[in-house]
């Protein structure tokens, strides 16, 4: 009984819409100004509906799109490194190791401990080994410390005992960057010779001498400098947003074995 009342009311509403639509069509066919106004209103409504529909469709494709973008990013980074390496070859007549970037998603991340870590969704079957560096476009993330078939554990840069070989833009001074242990965006650059000038505002990036991280990855900005006459220390504000990490890149050095052999003198 209740359903038939609802159906009757729905039928009345639909009939009203149909009759008004016929009236509007008649009006739009006869009145020039009304035709343009009605057509304009219809087009606006259509565009809004199409935009909403497209937005909903895009939303469901975001995950796949993100994966595609991450893969493209890896490829572009490798291409960029190849160009940089070729440029250095021309300038210095030196061979530099190639890098492969493997995109990974962060499954777990800690930032509020003294020794923080991450779990990524790549493992042995993806070619991951312990000792590989992990980066993003914002800077260094950490170093792979343990690997299983499908996942790996990364010791975060925000851990005691972790450090990165860094250089200061402009002066080219080299030092060691390590976490201060308190705020996740503050680090300390040490072991800079005192005679090399370092100023607030200088950019700090990876030196490339660690055989873990490629050179030129931006790490942070110098905020203050202090010196004891022998060496200079600089406080650095990190670019990396550790609490917002979702997609990272694991760095594999393609010529790692040969370089290790050279390091060991064999």
């Amino acid at each position: 009984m209740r359903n038939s009342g609802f159906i009757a009311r729905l039928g009345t509403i639909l009939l009203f819409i149909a009759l008004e639509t016929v009236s509007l069509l008649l009006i739009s066919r006869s009145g020039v100004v009304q035709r343009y106004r009605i057509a304009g209103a219809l087009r606006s409504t259509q565009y809004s509906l199409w935009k909403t529909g497209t937005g909903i469709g895009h939303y469901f494709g975001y995950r796949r799109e993100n994966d595609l973008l991450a893969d493209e990013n890896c490829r572009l980074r490798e291409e960029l490194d190849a160009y940089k390496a070729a440029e250095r070859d021309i300038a210095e007549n030196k061979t530099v190791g190639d890098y492969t970037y493997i995109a990974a998603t962060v499954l777990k991340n800690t930032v509020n401990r003294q020794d923080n870590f991450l779990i990524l969704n790549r493992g042995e079957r993806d070619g991951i080994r312990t000792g590989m560096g992990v980066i993003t476009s914002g800077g260094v993330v950490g170093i792979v410390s343990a690997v299983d078939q499908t996942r790996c554990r990364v010791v975060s840069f925000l851990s005691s005992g972790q450090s990165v070989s860094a250089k200061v833009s402009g002066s080219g001074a080299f030092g060691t960057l390590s976490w201060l242990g308190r705020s996740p965006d503050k680090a300390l650059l040490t072991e800079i010779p005192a005679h090399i000038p370092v100023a607030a505002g200088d950019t700090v990036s990876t030196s490339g001498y660690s055989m873990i991280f490629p050179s030129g990855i931006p790490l942070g900005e110098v905020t203050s400098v202090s010196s004891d006459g022998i060496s200079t220390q600089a406080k650095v504000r990190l670019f990396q947003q550790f609490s917002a990490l979702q997609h990272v890149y694991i760095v594999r050095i393609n010529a790692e074995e040969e370089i290790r052999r050279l390091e060991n003198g064999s």
Partner: protein
Amino acid sequence: MDHNLRYIAGCVLLFLLQIMVANHIDLGPYIFIGLLPLILMHIPATTSDALRMVIAFALGLLLDIMTDGVPGLHAGAATVLGALCGTIYRNRINTDWRNDSGVPTVRSIGPGYALYAFISTLIYVSAYILLECATIRPFWFILLRILLSTAVSTLLTVIIGRSLFRGR
């Protein structure tokens, strides 16, 4: 004369009057006289809203065809009134409609007849004017046209309605 015949004769007369008014009487850009509500107001209360809308649409379309206006204007406005006036009559004007013959007349409605005429005319005139010149004319012009047209049309509706649809 049988009531139904009187009603039909009254409707035909009103229709011819509306055509004459629309085609030959021009009271300026601010006043539009709409007498179609008078016909739709007196459709029996037992008529379903759907049938009322169809009757309204048909009458409006017939009026559009027989006048020099834009086809669809009277039909669209009459459909809006047809959708609402039955509900207004049954729920607000004459809640006791089941106990009389169900045909709205001046006697059965009583003192609320002027209010019923005003509401029906306001709905019809507003719908007509908005369909005709919404987004084309300035807001104040539209508002003034609605107010003046409603006032004149309501007055005529009450006067003619008391003559044609007095009831027993």
